[in-house]
């Protein structure tokens, strides 16, 4: 932490050009929510930045368009934000950093399950806050997990997914596609015997990548585990593996979530 934080207002230019890193960006975005004038200023600066973008125009390779059209053909779109829906606004959302709407909640179940998801998220956040030093880690190197968790929780594109684990328990995934990171936690997973652990997988078009072993559950909660390097189109899987972890899944997936 720096000793002196800059005046939020002076950061409008840096913000409009994405020159703020994670914590600074999150702080400025919190400020933006309370400052209409800043919001207007940032909008104007985004227009200026867009001109810089146009000035840099360069045609992409022709093949990109077809790839992309194939990709969007199988990509579900976000529904519009429905403003003035008081129920949604007042929904108990402990994990809505900076009052930002949740991205998408993609789950088999409907609204009733939202409460379960948010409860899971709340527990996840609570666990994350005071267990940040001891959480499970995905194999990739990086900054301390507490930092990664904070990055995901404060990401403007925070997305929450929930799913039922086939052998029992509920999984919650908080993801920032932009940061290509996710935080995974589960509640009520069946206890495993012997030297077996739950292992996370990122499953994309290529090979499945191990994304971390879940630590032993504490008070019924497993995780949080941070996984980095999430790619568009990845699916998240969970399987039971030997304690040392596996390079490839050796048992059937008991949870698969499309990210």
């Amino acid at each position, binding site marked *: 932490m720096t000793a002196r934080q800059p005046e939020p207002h002076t950061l*409008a230019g840096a913000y409009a050009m994405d020159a703020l*890193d994670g914590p600074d960006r999150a702080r400025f975005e919190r400020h933006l929510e309370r400052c209409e004038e800043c919001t207007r200023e940032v909008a104007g600066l985004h227009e200026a930045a867009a001109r810089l973008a146009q000035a840099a125009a360069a045609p992409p390779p022709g093949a*990109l368009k077809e790839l992309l059209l194939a990709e969007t*053909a199988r990509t579900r779109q976000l529904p519009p934000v429905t403003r003035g829906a008081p129920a949604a606004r007042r929904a108990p959302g402990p994990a809505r950093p900076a009052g930002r709407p949740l991205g998408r909640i993609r789950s088999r179940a409907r609204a009733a399950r939202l409460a379960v998801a948010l409860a899971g998220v709340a527990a996840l956040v609570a666990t994350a806050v005071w267990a940040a030093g001891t959480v499970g880690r995905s194999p990739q190197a990086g900054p301390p997990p507490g930092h990664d968790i904070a990055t995901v929780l404060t990401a403007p594109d925070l997305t929450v997914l929930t799913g039922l684990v086939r052998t029992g328990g509920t999984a919650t995934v908080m993801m920032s596609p932009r940061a290509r990171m996710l935080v995974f936690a589960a509640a009520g997973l069946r206890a495993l015997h012997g030297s077996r652990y739950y292992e996370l997988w990122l499953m994309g078009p290529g090979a499945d990548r191990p994304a971390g072993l879940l630590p032993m559950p504490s008070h019924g909660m497993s995780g949080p585990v941070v996984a980095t390097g999430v790619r568009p189109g990845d699916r998240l899987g969970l399987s039971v593996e030997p304690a040392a972890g596996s390079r490839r899944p050796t048992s059937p997936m008991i949870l698969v979530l499309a990210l």
Partner: protein
Amino acid sequence: MPGADLAALLTQVARGDHAAFAEVYDRVAAPVFGTVRSVVRDPSLSEDVTQEVFVEVWRAASRFDAGKGSPMAWVATIAHRRAVDRVRSEQRSAERDRRAAAPPIAYDEVAEAVEDNLDRERVRRCLGALTELQREAVTLAYYGGYTYREVAGLLGVPAGTVNTRMRDGLIRLRDCLGAGS
């Protein structure tokens, strides 16, 4: 007014119109790819990020709000943010060294990269009207994808000064370009 058309197209895209999406792509792919490439540098990674940007445009088209800004600014914001975030996450690995070795694209280099680009001419002229520090701060941040702290390090000036210059520079640029009009 092409901007208005683009906004209308985005409304169509939000309703799942693939043809409208293809049209949006044709209109903004060059600024998106150019911006992403100037930040990311690596050509194949740039294609990858460009694809992510357009998937995001497709996915989030319903979130575009014409009352808050132009469609081009909406798309460019997504593109630049994605490019920068990708570069910063790659920087955790060895990528940082490789990028540090390659100097960021200077604005005149960007300016010369594309012909028949009126925007480029005006942007070039307006950038030229900034103070040197403002211009460097703006181009390093936007085209180089550096954070203000990194820009401060590169220019050897205090971070607070860089912040002020970025804001002042962008405001002057906006006024010079008549952006948003």
